[in-house]
C-alpha cells in the first residue's frame, strides 16, 4: 500500500522535470496513474467483502510511536476507490477542460499530489501520519484553489480555505496527541480496545472538541462552511474532485473512523446531530437564493456533508449504513453535476442559471447525464439515490429522541436537494434555446463521457443494490465494530412510512422546482444579510486580531533598547518576586559566618564607589571605566573565595567588555541630554529591586540542603576517568564536552551576526 500512496507523490515529482511533455496531447496519459491505482484497489474488493482487514506497517519514528502503518478495511476501501475512481475521470476530463493551458502540467502535479495525500489520509492507521497527510491535502488544495493566481479572488479564496482547514489541522494534531496520551498508542486499530478508558478520561470532552473542530472545518460544517463556496473559484475539475467528492469528505471520514473509538458518550451524538442538522438545513435553504450553478452545487454539497455528519451522529447501524451509501450516491451525482456545469461553462461562457436554457439541442449526451444525475440526486427510483434516501428516513424514524423533528429536517433538506439537483442537472437543458447559444457545439468526448459513466454507475447500483451491499455497506458496518444484524439493501420495501416519506419528497421537490425560479432579486436580498453571515464575522475577527496584534506589538517594540530592558527586567521581577514571596522563608545561619577581613571590606568599598560613580558621572567613558572597576572587584572577590578559574575568566571578559565599550563610545560626544530625574528614579527603583530579588534568591538557594552527589561524582572521577585534576576544566572539555561544543557554536553564530549586521550596514553606507 505504501507504493500506492507514493505513486502520486512520485508522479508529481516527475512532472517537475518532465512536465513539458504532459502539456499537449499526452496530457490524457496522466490519468493512467489514478486508473492503475483504481484497478489495484479493486483487486481487494472480494477479500474485504469476506471480512478481511489488510494491515501494513513501515517503521518511521518508532521511538515516538509514529509509523507509516496502513489499514485497508471496508471504510478505507470505499474512500480509496472513490479517490482513484473519481480521480481517473477527473484526470481525463481535465486534459480537455484545460487543453493547451500554459500550466497544465503544474495542475496535474498538484492534482496527483492531492490524490496521494488523500489516499494516505484514508489508509493511515496511525493518527500522526494521518495528520501529516491531512495537512498535505490542505496544502495541495491551497494551490489548486489558487490555480488562477493572476486573479485576486482566487488568491483570497485559497488563503481563506487554507486558514480554515489549517486551523482544523492544528486541532487534529491536538486531538491526536491527547488521544495518543490517553490510549497509549497512535494506532487507531489499537485504540478500539481502550474505548472505555478514553470515554472515562478527564480529557474526553477536550478530545472531542479537537476532533470535531478538525472534522467540521475540513467538511465545511456550520459555521465554518463559508470557505467551500469561495473555493469554487478553482477550475471545475478541482471543485469536482476536492470540493465535492473527496477532500471535503475527509472530515466525515475522520468522524466515521473515530466513531467506534469515541462514540461512548451522549455528547458525541448530540453535538454531531445538532451541527449536522443545522448545516444541512441552513445551506439547503441557501440554495434557493443562488443563481450561479457552481454556487448552487457548493451549497448543496455543504448540505450533503451536513447529512453525513448528522447520520454519523445518530450512530445506529441503519444510520451508519445510510451514511456509507449516501457517500457513494453523493460522489456519483455531485461529481457528475460539477463536470456538467464545467462543460456548460466551457462551451457557453456562463454559469448563470437564469440565462441557460434549451441546451439539450446542442449538448445532448451532456443533457442525458444531467438528467440522470438529477434523478439520482432527487432520489427517484430506480437510482441508487432512492436507496440512499430510504436509508436516511429509516434511521431518523427509528432514532430514540425527537424522531419526528429529525425526520422533518431530513425531509425538508431532501426536498431542497431535489430542487438543487434539478436546477443544476435539468433546467439548463430544457426550454427554448436562446439565439446566442445556437453556435454552441459538443466538446470532445473526453469531457462528456466521464459524467455519463458516473451517472450510469448510479443507475446500475440502484438496480442492483446488492453490489453496494456486499462490497461497501457490510464491510463498513464491520469497521464500526457493531454487533450488526444482517441487512439487505433493496429498492422495494413494500408500502410503509418510509415509502410515503420518499414519495412526499418527490412530490414536494417537483412542486418546488416548478413554483420557484432562480432569480437575481433573491440573490440580492440574501446579500443584504451578509453582515451577520459567519464568513463576515470570522473575517472581521481575523482582521481585528491583526489590528490588535499590531497595536500590541507597537507597545513592546519601541525600538529603544532601554524600553526592551525595562520590560524584560520588570517581567523577571514580577515572576521571580511572585515565586520567592509565595513561599518565603529565609534561613541564615549567622553563627557559621566567617569574620570580615580587611580585604573584603576594602573591595566592598571599591565596588560601591564604582557603582555610584557609574550612575552619577556625566561622561560616557568614565561610566564605562568605573563599570570596569566593578567587574574587576568582582573577580577579586572570586579569587578570595577560591574560584580562580572564575576570577580569571571574569577578568578577561571584563577587560574585553571595557575595550568594546570604549571602541563604540569614545567617538561619541558627551551626554547631550541626560534623562530627567523622574526617569532616573524609575530606573533606579527597578535596578535596586532586581538586585534585592537576586540577593534573596541566592540566600534562599544557600539555605536549601545541598545535594552534593554531583560534586562528589566529579571530584572522584575527574582524575580517574578523565585524567584531569582541574574539575571545572574536566567538566568543560570532557564530562559535558558536547555542551561546550554547542556553546562555542553559539559563540560563532553571535560573532557572525555582529559581523554580518555591521558589514552590511557599512556597504550600504558606502553606496551613498
Amino acid at each position, binding site marked *: 500500500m505504501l507504493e500506492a500512496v507514493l505513486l502520486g507523490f512520485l508522479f508529481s515529482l516527475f512532472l517537475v522535470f518532465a512536465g513539458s511533455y504532459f502539456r499537449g496531447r499526452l496530457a490524457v496519459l496522466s490519468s493512467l496513474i489514478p486508473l492503475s491505482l483504481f484497478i489495484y484497489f479493486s483487486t481487494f474488493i472480494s477479500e474485504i467483502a469476506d471480512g478481511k482487514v489488510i494491515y501494513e506497517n513501515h517503521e518511521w519514528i518508532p521511538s515516538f510511536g509514529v509509523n507509516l502503518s496502513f489499514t485497508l478495511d471496508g471504510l478505507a476501501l470505499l474512500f480509496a476507490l472513490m479517490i482513484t475512481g473519481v480521480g481517473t475521470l477527473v484526470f481525463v476530463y481535465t486534459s480537455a477542460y484545460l487543453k493547451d493551458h500554459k500550466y497544465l502540467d503544474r495542475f496535474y502535479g498538484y492534482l496527483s499530489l492531492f490524490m496521494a495525500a488523500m489516499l494516505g489520509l484514508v489508509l493511515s492507521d496511525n493518527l500522526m501520519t494521518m495528520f501529516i497527510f491531512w495537512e498535505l491535502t490542505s496544502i495541495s488544495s491551497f494551490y489548486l484553489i489558487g490555480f488562477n493566481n493572476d486573479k485576486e479572488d482566487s488568491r483570497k479564496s485559497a488563503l481563506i480555505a487554507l486558514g480554515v482547514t489549517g486551523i482544523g489541522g492544528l486541532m487534529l494534531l491536538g486531538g491526536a496527541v491527547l488521544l495518543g496520551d490517553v490510549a497509549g498508542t497512535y494506532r487507531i486499530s489499537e485504540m478500539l480496545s481502550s474505548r472505555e478508558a478514553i470515554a472515562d478520561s478527564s480529557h474526553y470532552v477536550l478530545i472531542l472538541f479537537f476532533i470535531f473542530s478538525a472534522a467540521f472545518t475540513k467538511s465545511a460544517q456550520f459555521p465554518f462552511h463559508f470557505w467551500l463556496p469561495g473555493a469554487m473559484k478553482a477550475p471545475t475539475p478541482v471543485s469536482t474532485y476536492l470540493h465535492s467528492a473527496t477532500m471535503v469528505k475527509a472530515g466525515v471520514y475522520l468522524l466515521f473512523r473515530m466513531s467506534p473509538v469515541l462514540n461512548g458518550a451522549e455528547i458525541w451524538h448530540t453535538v454531531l446531530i445538532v451541527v449536522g442538522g443545522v448545516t444541512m438545513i441552513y445551506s439547503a435553504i441557501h440554495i434557493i437564493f443562488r443563481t450561479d450553478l457552481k454556487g448552487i452545487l457548493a451549497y448543496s454539497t455543504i448540505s450533503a456533508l451536513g447529512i453525513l455528519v448528522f447520520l454519523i451522529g445518530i450512530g445506529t447501524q441503519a444510520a451508519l449504513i445510510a451514511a456509507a451509501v449516501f457517500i457513494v450516491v453523493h460522489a456519483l451525482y455531485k461529481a457528475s453535476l460539477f463536470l456538467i456545469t464545467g462543460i456548460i461553462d466551457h462551451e457557453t461562457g456562463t454559469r448563470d442559471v437564469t440565462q441557460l436554457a434549451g441546451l439539450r439541442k446542442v449538448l445532448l449526451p451532456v443533457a442525458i447525464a444531467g438528467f440522470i444525475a438529477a434523478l439520482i440526486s432527487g432520489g427517484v427510483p430506480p437510482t441508487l439515490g432512492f436507496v440512499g434516501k430510504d436509508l436516511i428516513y429509516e434511521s431518523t424514524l427509528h432514532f430514540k429522541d425527537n424522531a419526528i423533528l429529525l425526520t422533518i429536517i431530513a425531509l425538508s433538506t431532501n426536498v431542497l436537494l431535489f430542487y438543487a439537483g434539478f436546477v443544476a442537472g435539468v433546467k439548463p437543458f430544457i426550454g427554448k434555446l436562446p439565439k446566442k447559444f445556437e453556435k454552441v457545439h459538443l466538446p470532445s468526448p473526453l469531457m462528456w463521457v466521464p459524467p455519463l459513466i458516473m451517472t450510469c454507475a448510479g443507475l446500475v447500483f440502484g438496480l442492483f443494490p446488492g453490489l453496494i451491499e456486499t462490497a461497501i455497506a457490510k464491510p463498513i458496518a464491520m469497521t464500526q465494530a457493531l454487533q450488526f444484524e444482517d441487512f439487505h439493501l433493496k429498492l422495494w420495501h413494500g408500502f410503509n412510512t418510509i415509502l410515503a416519506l420518499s414519495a412526499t419528497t418527490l412530490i414536494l421537490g417537483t412542486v418546488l422546482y416548478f413554483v420557484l425560479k432562480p432569480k437575481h432579486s433573491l440573490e440580492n436580498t440574501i446579500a443584504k444579510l451578509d453582515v451577520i453571515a459567519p464568513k463576515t464575522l470570522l473575517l472581521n475577527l481575523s482582521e481585528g486580531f491583526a489590528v490588535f496584534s499590531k497595536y500590541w506589538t507597537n507597545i513592546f517594540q519601541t525600538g529603544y533598547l532601554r524600553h526592551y530592558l525595562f520590560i524584560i527586567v520588570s517581567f523577571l521581577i514580577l515572576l521571580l518576586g511572585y515565586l520567592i514571596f509565595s513561599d518565603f522563608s529565609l534561613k541564615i545561619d549567622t553563627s557559621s559566618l566567617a569574620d570580615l577581613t580587611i580585604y573584603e571590606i576594602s573591595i566592598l568599598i571599591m565596588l560601591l564607589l564604582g557603582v555610584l560613580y557609574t550612575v552619577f558621572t556625566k561622561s560616557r567613558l568614565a561610566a564605562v571605566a568605573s563599570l570596569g572597576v566593578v567587574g574587576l572587584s568582582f573577580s577579586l572577590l572570586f579569587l578570595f573565595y577560591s574560584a580562580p578559574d572564575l576570577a580569571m575568566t571574569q577578568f*578577561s571578559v571584563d577587560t*574585553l567588555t571595557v575595550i568594546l565599550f570604549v571602541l563604540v563610545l569614545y567617538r561619541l560626544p558627551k551626554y547631550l541630554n541626560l534623562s530627567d530625574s523622574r526617569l532616573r528614579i524609575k530606573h533606579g527603583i527597578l535596578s535596586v529591586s532586581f538586585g534585592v530579588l537576586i540577593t534573596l534568591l541566592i540566600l534562599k538557594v544557600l539555605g536549601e540542603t545541598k545535594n552534593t552527589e554531583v560534586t562528589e561524582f566529579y571530584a572522584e572521577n575527574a582524575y580517574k576517568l578523565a585524567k584531569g585534576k582541574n574539575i571545572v576544566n574536566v567538566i568543560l572539555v570532557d564530562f559535558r564536552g558536547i555542551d561546550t561544543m554547542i556553546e562555542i557554536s553559539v559563540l560563532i553564530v553571535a560573532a*557572525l551576526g555582529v559581523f554580518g549586521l555591521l558589514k552590511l550596514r557599512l556597504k550600504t553606507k558606502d553606496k551613498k
Partner: protein
Amino acid sequence: MRTLILKSASSYLIPVLLIFSVFILLRGHYLPGGGFVGGLVAAIAFVLDAFSNGLEKTKTILKIHPGFLMPLGLLVAFLSGISPMVFSDLPFMTGIWAENPIPVIGAIGSALFFDLGVYLVVIGAALTIIFTISESA
C-alpha cells in the same frame, strides 16, 4: 590613543601575553586555566596591538581574517570528538590519551585538542566582534 609608552610597552607585552595564553591553555587540565580563558588572553593581546599600532597593522600581522579561526576551531574540536570513534571504537567525545606524556606539554589526549578548538573559536569570535565594531564605529 597612540602614545609612545603604550607602543613600546606593547611590543614587549604582546609576545608575553601570547605565550601566557598558550601556557594557560596547556595547564588547564590540572590547574586553573583552559581554552576559554586562554583564548580571551590571546584576543586581548591582539586588541592591545590594535590599540597601540593601529588596526590595519594588526590585520597584516594576523595575515588572515580572525573570522577564519572560528570554523577552524570548531573543526578541531569536532575532530577531537570523533577521534575516539575512529581510533578506539568508543562513543563520540570519549576522552582518549596517549600513553607517554610529552615533556613540557604533558599528557596528550583528545581533551587537549578539544580545548585547543575552544581556544581558537574564542580568539576568532572575540576578535571578529571587536574588529568589526571598531571598523564601523
